[in-house]
């Protein structure tokens, strides 16, 4: 075992209320792609702040401890 190895490094964060373990280096775009979500059809909130710039999703790395909310429009009155 090589604890310092980064080969399988993961980060622990909360996505939509659930604890998740994700590969280190994952971006917002990567997280959305992993769930087959179209960035144009969702809104991402990170640690209580809305990530408004969808063009930046490709470059925005997620961090350990982040709280991410991914929301969309559903039927409602």
């Amino acid at each position: 075992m090589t604890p310092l190895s980064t080969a399988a490094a993961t980060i622990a964060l909360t996505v939509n209320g659930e604890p998740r373990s994700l590969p280190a280096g994952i971006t917002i775009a990567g997280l959305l792609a992993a769930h087959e979500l179209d960035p144009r059809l969702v809104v991402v909130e990170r640690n209580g702040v809305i990530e408004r710039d969808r063009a930046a999703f490709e470059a925005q790395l997620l961090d350990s401890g982040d709280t991410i909310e991914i929301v969309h429009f559903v039927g409602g009155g």
Partner: protein
Amino acid sequence: MSATELMPQLDTPLVIGGRTFASRLMVGTGKYASNAQMIAAIEASGAEVVTVAVRRVDLDRSKDEGVLHHLSPDRFFLLANTAGCYNVTDALRYARLGRAAGFNEWVKLEVIGDQQTLYPDTAGLIEATKILADEGFKVMAYTNDDLIAALRLEDAGAVCVMPLASPIGSGLGLLNPMAIRTIKHRLSVPVIVDAGVGTASDATLVMEQGVDGILMNTALAAAKDPIRMATAMRLGVDAGRLAYLAGRMERREVAVPSSPTTGMLT
């Protein structure tokens, strides 16, 4: 095709917050048996404004169930609501998330005060309206049929005030016509009655009070045939609107013959 669309000279367009809307009937998108039924009912209603809710994406579901997969934002005016919010902080958060979806700066603001009745927390509603109006939102505020709350919402910057006919999803129809008329008489901003309509005659009665429009959801979604009911509501809204504009005859508690009383055979 509705009467007012066929004969636009019969009515003036609905204008809220500087924007002209094609229909006085606005509809929700919740609680339909299927997306296909929802779309067919919305089309039958003739509505331009359709409300949507902001919720978490269900990440463990295979494919996205977002309403935008079915409703084109080019065809309909998407009005995000803050349904389910019981305090100002949550309502502001949902409103901002809804705006960040990128379609428009409008919000149907709900700050609910009680789970049993879904009556609004009017103090919270007024506070949230002020904050959102300052942030450039066009706030359409769901409220009760209280004149003072409606006046305060107008002062707080709401572009439209939306009193209920009866509780959300109740289908009880218009419980207090005088209260709705009073609100309409006293406010300068448009009044759209939101919630409580059950069937087409309810919609007609609401529009006969002189209000500017109606927003409904359950009356369509929970009808046995939502598409026929949506058509009926479209006609009912037009009927009530035109009857209001026409000005009804005076009520008389005596009969007055419609046929001449002269020229009778002797």
